[in-house]
């Protein structure tokens, strides 16, 4: 990656690995309902961390706390700290806009803007860093390449993004997030609405991207978590039950509830 592709974030060098997340005693409430209880965990950079657990266990809430997308919900409250590279993202003076550039997010249901493929990818850098035109073209191409979409769309960058297939639209959303050059990428069930082939492409992509990104993925698909993640955190009823290396957690879970969930006894 050239220096021109680093519009927002400080350029990561070989010595400083960024994108480390440390969570300490994090609680979250929707009004009177407590959705997260005293979560403490660390997420390693340049690795894939999977969040698993039954519906309503708080894993999506936790994911959305990392880029502070949750605070838009009326009545939302939290306590505790989430630190990104040592800096508490909830401290006073933390710029949410900058935070969300550093922490990109891709949603379960692909949501490209009703605009051209090019504009979708260019939107973030255009708004956030105002690079000149040549830079922008390079950023768009680089982001689409990283999302393994460039070869499929390079001849129709001006076509509507909505004309792409579902899987392509999802990879476009990944490219859109990558164009901001984030340190962290949050994936909220990114493949749950895709067919098996498109799912496989997204999984391969995640594997590629973890070389220079911190990836946190929420998934309902346990096989997927086992396939693509380095570490897995099991959430249940808003609590972190167990976290560890994926292989260890799936083969010899320490908690009974973890074992019950991964063997399919509930969830």
């Amino acid at each position: 990656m050239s220096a021109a592709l680093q519009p927002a974030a400080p350029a990561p060098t070989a010595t400083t690995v960024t994108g480390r997340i440390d969570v300490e005693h994090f609680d979250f409430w929707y009004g009177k309902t407590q959705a997260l209880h005293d979560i403490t965990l660390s997420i390693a950079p340049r690795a894939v961390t999977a969040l698993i657990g039954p519906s309503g266990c708080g894993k999506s809430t936790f994911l959305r706390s990392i880029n502070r997308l949750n605070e838009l919900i009326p009545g939302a409250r939290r306590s505790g700290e989430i630190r990104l590279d040592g800096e508490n993202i909830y401290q006073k003076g933390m710029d949410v806009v900058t935070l969300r550039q550093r922490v990109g997010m891709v949603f379960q249901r692909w949501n490209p803007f009703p605009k051209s493929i090019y504009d979708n990818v260019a939107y973030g850098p255009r708004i956030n860093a105002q690079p000149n035109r040549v830079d922008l073209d390079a950023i768009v191409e680089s982001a689409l390449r990283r999302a393994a979409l460039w070869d499929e769309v390079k001849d129709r960058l001006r076509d509507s993004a909505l004309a792409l297939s579902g899987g392509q639209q999802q990879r476009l959303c990944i490219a859109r997030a990558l164009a901001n050059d984030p340190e962290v990428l949050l994936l909220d069930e990114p493949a749950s609405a895709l067919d098996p082939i498109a799912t496989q492409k997204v999984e391969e992509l995640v594997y590629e991207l973890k070389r220079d990104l911190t990836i946190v993925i929420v998934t309902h698909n346990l096989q997927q978590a086992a396939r693509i993640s380095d570490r897995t955190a099991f959430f249940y009823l808003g609590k972190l039950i167990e976290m560890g290396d994926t292989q260890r957690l799936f083969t010899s879970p320490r908690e009974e509830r973890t074992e019950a969930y991964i063997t399919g006894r509930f969830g």
Partner: protein
Amino acid sequence: MSYVMVALTVVAAGLAIVPLVAILGYLIKQGAGALSLEFFTSMPKPVGEAGGGMVNAILGTLILIGIASSVGLPIGIGAGLYLAERGGTRLANLVRFLADVLNGLPSIVMGIFAWEFLVRPIGHFSALAGGAAIGAMMIPLVTRTTEEMVRTVPQSLREAALALGFPRWRTSLQIVLRTALGGIVTGVLVAVARVAGETAPLLFTAFGNQFFSTKLTQPIAALPLQVFVYAISPYDEWHAQAWAGALVLIALILIISVISRFVVRSKHGRAND
């Protein structure tokens, strides 16, 4: 039995369009004779002289629509955006209710109100007062359409923008409003078409003007007013002119409606995923 039902509804559907067809047909029959290029380019002639046109009234109506839009659109779109994005608050519910009341307000009342606050303090009738009166009538129409259209923008699109680091205001303006733009434009055109034909609120605000005037602080002619004045006059030439004026007015509104339908189709075809 169901055949009878179908037949009845077909008849009702046919009857529903009878008024429009009859009005249009009769207008064309009565008004087309007086309609010529001269009608669009020249001033009214004194009684007894043949020919003449309504260029002052046509231009006046366009100016009034312009004033009304610059009053009604920013307020209406802004209020609609607020209602859609912050819909749950007490203020929002109050605004929504008042907008509905305003929408049902008889237009003559709007005229009286504008007269009291814009004509009397200034001391004379003006285009501004007339434009403001019909502009105020546009506000509730535009507000409610904007709200409805902005609500159809999926939440996932807002989240996408916010997650990319857009500030909230930018998300509202650049993503939400632009996605809903097709529908909003339609609503705006419907509102314009609706107030373009208003007569009552103009009677004692814009007042009408027999002469050519584009001054915003002076009384200004308007098609519906001119039609009204000519129609109640005792002269046959003026009656013919009134028919022609009514025909032009209807044509104007029809054109706006057709454009709005076209806009809806071209925009909505794309917005649906």
